[in-house]
């Protein structure tokens, strides 16, 4: 009689050109042990698992779920074996392949060191590549630099439950990437009334007009599923850098690109004319409550 272990989905985690950021982000998952116990873990680079990398690169095993973290460099080797060979072997029989993080999804930061060669697993920025095209129907992109641990947990749980995961045009799960990073931002009221942050380091003001915030142009759930169960970039006054999108990292990340003071990029799907009309009118009104400090500490704490 097969043991319970035999029925578990076999999970393998391989790395390309990476900083391990997705690994460390995933390790923040509160019920990580519970979740991983539902799988037969062949290999996760962060801690010792059933097999060593020496065994994995012999390509004598197969896996059901392949997680690939990092950008794809055709010249790269893992433990002396070509990454390409490794990937082809494990992709062949896998049920699902997860390109984990923006490097694996689109090329990300590490693409920039050799833009002609380094890509994501299936995409080079927003264009499909050919190397692993045969496996495109098995690939899910989980973009983000890094991914939120709950995003990976969601995908793994969906696979456990055997529920189909609906994807967007960039192969990302729509349940995670249909909203914008802007959704749920605590600075939304300042966006509505077009009140920009006067400088960094303030609770007050929207970071979209001057400080480079990409949240209204970025598909993610960062302000919905909070980071570390706690916060998000925009909530602590850091602009969103659009790290879930294929063009990450853009240039001049702390500055909004404007044409004659008009933001070059505006919220996804909003016609510029409508945006400018609305913005011009909203800007006209002076809402005293929103123009001053939210809290004026009378005495030093």
């Amino acid at each position, binding site marked *: 009689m097969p043991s319970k272990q035999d029925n578990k989905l076999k999970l393998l985690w391989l790395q390309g*050109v*990476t*900083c*391990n*950021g*997705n*690994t*460390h*982000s995933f*390790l*923040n998952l*509160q019920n*990580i*042990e519970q979740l*991983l116990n539902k799988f037969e873990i062949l290999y996760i*680079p*962060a*801690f*010792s698992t059933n097999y*060593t*990398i*020496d065994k994995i690169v012999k390509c004598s095993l197969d896996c059901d779920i392949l997680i690939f973290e990092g950008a794809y460099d055709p010249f*790269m*080797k*893992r*433990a002396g074996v070509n990454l390409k060979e490794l990937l082809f072997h494990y992709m062949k029989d896998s049920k699902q392949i997860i390109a984990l993080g923006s490097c694996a999804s689109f090329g990300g*930061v*590490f693409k*920039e*060191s*050799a833009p002609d060669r380094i890509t994501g697993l299936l995409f080079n920025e927003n264009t499909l590549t050919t190397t692993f095209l045969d496996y495109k129907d098995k690939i899910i992109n989980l973009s983000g*630099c*890094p991914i939120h641990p709950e995003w990976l947990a969601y995908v793994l749980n969906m696979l456990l439950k055997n529920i189909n995961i609906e994807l967007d045009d960039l192969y990302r799960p729509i349940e995670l990437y249909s909203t914008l990073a802007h959704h749920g931002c605590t600075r939304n009221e300042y966006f509505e009334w077009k009140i920009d942050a006067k*400088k*960094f*380091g*303030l*609770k007050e003001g929207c970071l979209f007009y001057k400080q480079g915030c990409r949240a209204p142009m970025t598909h993610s759930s960062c302000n919905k599923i909070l*980071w*570390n*169960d*706690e*916060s*998000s*970039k*925009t*909530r*602590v*006054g*850091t602009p969103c*850098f659009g790290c879930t999108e294929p063009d990450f*990292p853009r*240039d*001049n*990340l*702390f*500055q909004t690109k404007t044409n004659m003071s008009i933001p070059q990029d505006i919220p996804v799907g909003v016609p510029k004319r409508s945006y400018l009309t609305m913005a011009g009118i909203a800007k006209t009104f002076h809402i005293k409550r929103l123009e001053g400090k939210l809290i004026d*500490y009378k005495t*030093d*704490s």
Partner: protein
Amino acid sequence: MITKQILENIEGEASVHFKIKDGLVDFSTISFPHFRGIETILEGKNILDALVITPRVCGICGHAHLMATTRAIEDAYKNMGVDFSLSDKSKKIREFTLIMETIQNHFKWLYMVMMPEIAKLTTNEIPYKPLKGAFASSIASKAIAVFGGQWPHSSYMIPGGITCDPTNIDIIKAQSYVEELIEFFQKESLGIELEKFLSMQTCKEFNELDSDISILERALISADMQNKGFAYDRFLIMGEHNFTKASKVNHTRVFSVDSKYISVVNSYSPREITYAKNALYKDDYYETGSLARMMSISFPMVRNIHRRYKDSAYSRVMARVFEIGYLLNHSLKLLDNISISEDSIISLPDVKNLTSTGIGIVEAPRGPLIHKVEVEQGIIKNYTIITPTQFNIGSSTPTKLTPVQLSMKATTQKEALFIFRTFDVCSVCTTH
């Protein structure tokens, strides 16, 4: 006989080539095979973009990179003649989140690396619970997220201060995460109160404990690690912080340091390509990291351990364990007296007008992390990163061994692999 060992469960991949003579390591070389080219990526970018790019050097100590970048840019402003000082609030919060990252790192190293690795050298029973370390680390990450928005890969430190504008609610939240961590450390790791642990006088006191730490301590002794893994018994601390002292320590004597004496040379790795370079101070190799930092402040118990066991693998590991406790305690003090009404940021001239050079040095979990920038009208001309692992885990010729090479000499290969990990290797940082 030459053998090659690939190392996993470190940050990235490394391999050690051992030359074995009479069953013991006679010589070893280390290679880091994966290059990523962050310094090149940075060239030509707006200097502020480095605040987003350099944390991506490393998933486990990216926050230290963020601080090094911030300090380097601030230094560049100062070198151009811009006079400013950071608010006390922003300094304390930066220091707090940096410490939390170090604690996060140490917990992972303890449970994901040290415990499983020492099990290979002892017949003592060692519980295997790597994810216990991840749980403790996740609490430290939450404390960072209170101010930094997220961990990993926050960019909340910027030249002049920090982007957040916390309320007392945030400070209290951060405090409660530290308290939760202390609770975890006491209950799950130490088996005694933190205060009692920090005031321990002798190693004998470990005997009375029955906890993860005492299991580790006994295993280290059973593997004879108090008599193995010695390096030069000289230490280097370069980052300016209030939890340590920038200095070099020869045995126990503390001397001042100057970053101008740091140099970098090519690695000696004849058997495999490596992208790492060795870092030196005044042309000598120094050990960096927790043991170095705890020696620099003469932390009583670490000094005692050192008196008995010098810079053995045992001392190196135990210094780290004590550093967790010391830093937890220190971080609470940091949060205790933050003036919430102070400015989060001091405005600096537009980065477009910045033409200068600067250096930013931070004590990352493994030791000094150094970023050097050359900026012309706000654009990066040159960016150089030197990481702590380059000090500890260089690969040199037999005539001038690096700390890790020296520490593995004359041990068995099995022991050497453990000793290697006592330095806590960060491959991704090393081959930034």
